[in-house]
């Protein structure tokens, strides 16, 4: 059978070799164990052998040519058919053979640290930071004290813990938490702002986001919702957003790598699909409580759940578990917004799906430009755990599902 002879790998540190000479000439027979060529490596010239009986064919590499390991060097005709079928000289090297090495190399293991700063970074002069010990900083933050207002008694005037503790007992804190007037009924916006700040900072600091955007024709979906609602009393009507959540949730069944959590660099798939529905709070702030098992809920039930959640967001009666439960987030701008939103992943989740404001736009259907209701869907996902290709397939499938609203 025909096969090719490839540049052999003679050592883990051999990446390429230079052909010095062909020992076997075209047409010449060779036997298993014969030297077929001489190859120059960093360790000197090595006679390379064949592992099968056969006949030398057309050379594919010229003498003096340096080629990487695995490069076809010559056509050969092998006689040991049974063995040759399984032998790699003719067959493609299996793609998975190096997979474990690669995995190990790129994987961030627990305890691994980020690469050191480039040496040049040291020479940059930075303005001197206010000197305060880590413990003092934390205490000041808890007491609501501004470090700049404190006098330091530590080395070089550094603020240490005792300075914060004594200031806390003496002066009125800048913002004494206990004495702050209770805000109107509803969530504690300051605390929420702090939580959002912490989560989003962590997200942007730690999560390598990638972003994808896809325009989806929502005409059928909006028509379907209109038809659905037209024959129902107001309390049984549903919102378009419910379809969007359901479409995302159902599609996620096929994309488990977008539904779960980052646990110290490793992906932990979620056991259910609990969609966090991003809900803005008037006056600022945002929460995304969970709709549990959204992929399995009928649209009416999903609507009821969403209605209940929004009501309780407004009333400030969410349970904390509802905020911790989502396995993925959907953020929908609704009717009043802009074309598209690029979400920031809520850690430890690994993906957020955004929908801009649906609006009528020209669209080409069957070669004709027609007005259609379009929405721009986006995906921001954690590149440590999924890649753009999967993400793109996911978004496209969400779009397809929304073309068949009655199946949702």
């Amino acid at each position, binding site marked *: 059978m025909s096969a090719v002879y490839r540049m052999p790998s003679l050592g883990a540190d051999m990446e390429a070799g230079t052909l010095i000479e062909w020992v076997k000439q075209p047409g010449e027979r060779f036997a298993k164990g014969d030297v077929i060529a001489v190859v120059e490596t960093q360790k000197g010239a090595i006679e390379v052998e064949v592992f099968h009986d056969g006949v030398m064919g057309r050379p594919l590499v010229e003498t003096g040519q340096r080629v990487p390991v695995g490069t076809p060097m010559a056509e050969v005709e092998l006689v040991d058919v049974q063995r040759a079928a399984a032998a790699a000289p003719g067959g493609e090297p299996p793609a998975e053979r190096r997979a474990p090495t690669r995995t190990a190399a790129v994987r961030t293991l627990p305890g691994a640290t980020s690469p050191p700063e480039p040496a040049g970074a040291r020479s940059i002069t930075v303005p001197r930071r206010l000197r305060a*010990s*880590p*413990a*003092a*900083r*934390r205490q000041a933050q808890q007491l609501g004290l501004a470090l700049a207002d404190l006098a330091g*008694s*530590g*080395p070089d005037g550094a603020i*240490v*813990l*005792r300075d914060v503790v004594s200031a806390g007992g003496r002066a009125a804190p800048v913002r004494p938490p206990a004495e702050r007037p209770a805000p109107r009924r509803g969530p504690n916006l300051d605390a929420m702002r702090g939580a959002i700040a912490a989560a989003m900072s962590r997200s942007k600091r730690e999560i390598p986001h990638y972003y994808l955007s896809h325009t989806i024709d929502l005409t059928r979906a909006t028509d379907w919702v209109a038809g659905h609602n037209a024959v129902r009393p107001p309390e049984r009507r549903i919102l378009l957003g419910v379809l969007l959540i359901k479409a995302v949730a159902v599609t996620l069944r096929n994309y488990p790598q977008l539904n779960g959590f980052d646990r110290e660099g490793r992906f932990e798939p979620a056991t259910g699909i609990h969609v966090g529905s991003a809900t803005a709070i008037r006056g600022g702030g945002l929460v995304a409580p969970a709709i549990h098992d959204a992929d399995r809920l009928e649209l009416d039930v999903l609507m009821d759940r969403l209605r209940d959640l929004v009501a309780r967001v407004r009333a400030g009666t969410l349970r904390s578990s509802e905020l911790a439960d989502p396995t993925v987030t959907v953020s929908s701008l609704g009717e009043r917004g802009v074309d598209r939103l690029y979400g920031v992943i809520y850690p430890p989740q690994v993906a957020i799906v955004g929908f801009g404001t649906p609006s009528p736009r020209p669209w080409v259907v069957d070669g004709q430009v027609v007005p259609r209701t379009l929405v721009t869907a986006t995906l921001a996902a954690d590149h440590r755990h999924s890649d753009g290709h999967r993400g793109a397939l996911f978004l496209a499938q969400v779009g397809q599902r929304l073309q068949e609203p009655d199946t949702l």
Partner: protein
Amino acid sequence: MSAETRETSYREAVREAIRDALRRDPRVFLMGEDVGRYGGCYAVTKGLYDEFGPERIRDTPLSESGFTGAGIGAAMGGMRPIVEIMTVNFSLLALDQIVNNAATIRHMSGGQLNVPVVIRMACGAGRQLAAQHSHSLEAWYAHIPGIKVVAPATLEDARGMLWTALEDPDPVVIFEHVMLYNRTAQLASDAGPVSIEGAAVRRAGGDLTLITYGGSLYKTLEAAEALAGEGIAAEVIDLRSLRPLDDATIMASVARTHRALIVDEGWRSGSLAAEISARIMEQAFWELDAPVGRVCSAEVPIPYPKHLEDAALPQVEGIVAAAKAVTGR
């Protein structure tokens, strides 16, 4: 709690531990240079040869690699050998066996083979033994995955760690600081095995944490006493196990005191003190109210003259001064 105690030296406590192990388990034997007829370089094994005979108190030629490797092989063959290496400096001749064999075989064999060997060695300075008999290379061993490293500082630990180490299925290296052998204290007459895991808080205090082990423990306790006289309450942690390190005990203490000083007779560069300091930074950064301090040996081979040897090693005054610096006083 035992009612009866008696005045015991660290040396006697180690000897009693060996005797106890030899009596408990016929698989246990001791081998090393001059452990038999001579009675041990530091007289630890004095009398055991007469009691247990040349098979179980086995004198070896000056072949550190050979007999340490034989101990590893015997452990794989079902025995429970105690290998005594005269000092840590000599153990460098056996590093191949300890690092390439004892530490790797379980892993290299895919978990098929265990190496339940115990290797004891003396370490540390203070006896004017100069630059080839005085070093503290514990950190080198603590660097190696596959072995456990302990440093008994108290009589209870000297008496109790050996048996636990022999029962451990993995290789254990025990460091005995030479300045501890003559140390005496009351030891319960029924003292027995103790855990070889975990650190111990030897003195409680709220102002700073002093972290140390082995021969430096008593200097550190003395420094803590001096600091108390100046109104600084120091907590003293005895690491006991150098690999694995007991992070939890260290971090819990630092969370209370917000300051840490590490006292380590090893050289500062690449030391255990450096490792502990890094871990505190990683795990308790926001608890810190001052940079972590270190008192280590001067970076010089240990010199012979007494005044220079003293100057090279951590001393009580230096610990007190460093502790004050850390507390900002």
